[in-house]
């Protein structure tokens, strides 16, 4: 039993059986908010040219980290994460590269997979950030605030793909107690939130010369992905992963084979760098799956408290009367 299964099946869930929380079941269904947007990425059309990566790098160059020269060593681990030596690398996710194309061999053919943040419907990264340094916009973009992030990297741990990448020596922790507290700033794709809030498209989509990427209302993108998958007898990734995301991949080959090929590449990398290459395994659970049971339990407890207090008070009155 996995950790999350344990979480979901815990006493919380059991106690919630007799929940008084009469919330309509639709309130808990995974739905997109108004104006939610999504991306369709058709791997049968991607030739791996890298135009999306170049466009992303140009668009976000002024937001890449500019760490201090002498990066403080974290006490007591004696470590810090510095990607400056890989600032030009475009074959992985780093604080200096928020999208890349993973090119893998599957059954003798090369499949090119543009990778970046999936922008989940219920993002554990943003929801579990202890300082709420991440938010989900009305369009569905999950955005990190570099001025609020302390670089604890919890978001990277709870993300099934470990998308956010950390750079040390930059950010608000440098003003507090560098070395003793925090560890830098987390960086990742922001779905070009500025552009899309003004009706534009993410720069990766605009730059794609083959039409492998489409951007628009999320429901339409999801439907288009299904249609395309049916037409080519292909597979979809991202529609149900982690409880649903804003990114819909369509592939002519199974994603399990793509994931296996990615794992092979990761195995050949130094261990500390593997975190910069996201896999494509099925993600059937979300870190926050136990929330409903927890909230129902929490909703029951005040009633139990009132009942117990009433019983205790009656007993107190009775004792008083006896005297």
């Amino acid at each position, binding site marked *: 039993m996995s950790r999350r299964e344990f979480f979901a099946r815990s006493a919380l869930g059991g106690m919630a059986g007799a929940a008084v929380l009469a919330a309509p079941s639709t309130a808990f269904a995974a739905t997109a908010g108004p104006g939610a947007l999504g991306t369709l990425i058709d791997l049968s059309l991607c030739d791996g040219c890298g135009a999306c990566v170049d466009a992303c790098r140009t668009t976000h160059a002024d937001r890449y980290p500019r760490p201090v020269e002498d990066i403080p060593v974290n006490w007591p681990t004696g470590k810090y994460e510095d990607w400056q030596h890989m600032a030009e690398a475009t074959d992985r996710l780093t604080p200096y590269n928020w999208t890349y194309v993973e090119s893998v061999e599957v059954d003798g053919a090369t499949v090119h997979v543009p990778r970046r943040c999936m922008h989940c419907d219920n993002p554990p990264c943003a929801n579990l950030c202890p300082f709420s340094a991440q938010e989900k916009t009305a369009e569905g973009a999950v955005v990190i605030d570099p001025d609020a992030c302390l670089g*604890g990297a919890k978001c990277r*741990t709870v993300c099934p793909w470990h998308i956010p990448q950390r750079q040390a020596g930059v950010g608000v922790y440098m003003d507090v107690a560098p070395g003793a507290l925090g560890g830098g700033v987390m960086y990742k794709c922001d779905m070009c939130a500025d552009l899309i809030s003004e009706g534009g498209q993410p720069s990766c989509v605009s730059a794609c010369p083959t039409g492998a990427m489409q951007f628009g209302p999320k429901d339409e993108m999801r439907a288009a992905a299904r249609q395309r998958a049916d037409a080519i007898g292909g597979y979809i990734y991202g529609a149900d992963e982690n409880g649903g995301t804003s990114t819909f991949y369509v592939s002519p080959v199974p994603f399990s084979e793509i994931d296996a090929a990615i794992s092979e590449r990761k195995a050949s990398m130094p261990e500390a760098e593997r975190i910069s290459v996201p896999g494509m395994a099925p993600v059937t659970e979300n870190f926050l799956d136990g929330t409903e049971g927890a909230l129902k339990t929490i909703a029951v407890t*005040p009633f139990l*408290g009132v009942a117990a207090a009433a019983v205790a008070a009656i007993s*107190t009155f009775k004792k008083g009367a006896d005297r």
Partner: protein
Amino acid sequence: MKAARSARDTILRQPLTNRISHWLIALSTFALIVSGLGQMPMYQRYKIAELPGMAWAADFGVTLWLHYIAAAVLIFAVVYHLVYAVLTRRFAIMPRKGDMKESAKIIAAMLGKGEEPDSHKYLAEQRIAYAFIGVNTLVVILSGIIKVYKNLPAIQLDPALISLTTLAHNVSALLLTIGIVGHLAAFIFKVNRKLVPAMFSGRVDREYARTRHSLWYAEHDEREQPLSEELDRAA
């Protein structure tokens, strides 16, 4: 005979109901602080998870689960405590007018300057401490409930509200922790230590109550538990 002597030397200060709610609140709050620090995240960062038997502390799934369970216990105990106080009209611990001034006098007296004023069941500083811990507990609970609610799949709250809630949760949790440290630090002063048994056996030294909580002792003596009756019960 031994029991009778004990009843004569001590008086009931905290009935069972108070002790139960106090310890449920104390233990759940301790679990919330421990698991909350795990959510910060602190245990891997400061190598605490590397200590023997502490590996679980670095697991956000485990600390989140512990946080939710402890929160349910805390909410139960706080609601129980408040509702019971209202139903039985027991407000001795609520702050009163002039408590700040009076508590300054008490602290001065503990440091050997001036005489300590007569006190009710609680010293003025205890009432202030209760209010401080109580208000922060309520803020931490209410903000915590919003934080759990926003984790539901279909819920997307306004980012400004989320930021404010998170700030309220973190600040109130910090103040609450400081309040608890202050509460425990009170026992550094020997004069306060006679109160400790009140939260275990429920009883405190009769002479201590007579001198330090004279107003309460007077009420207590005439109204609630005449000594003879208490001795009868103990015998």
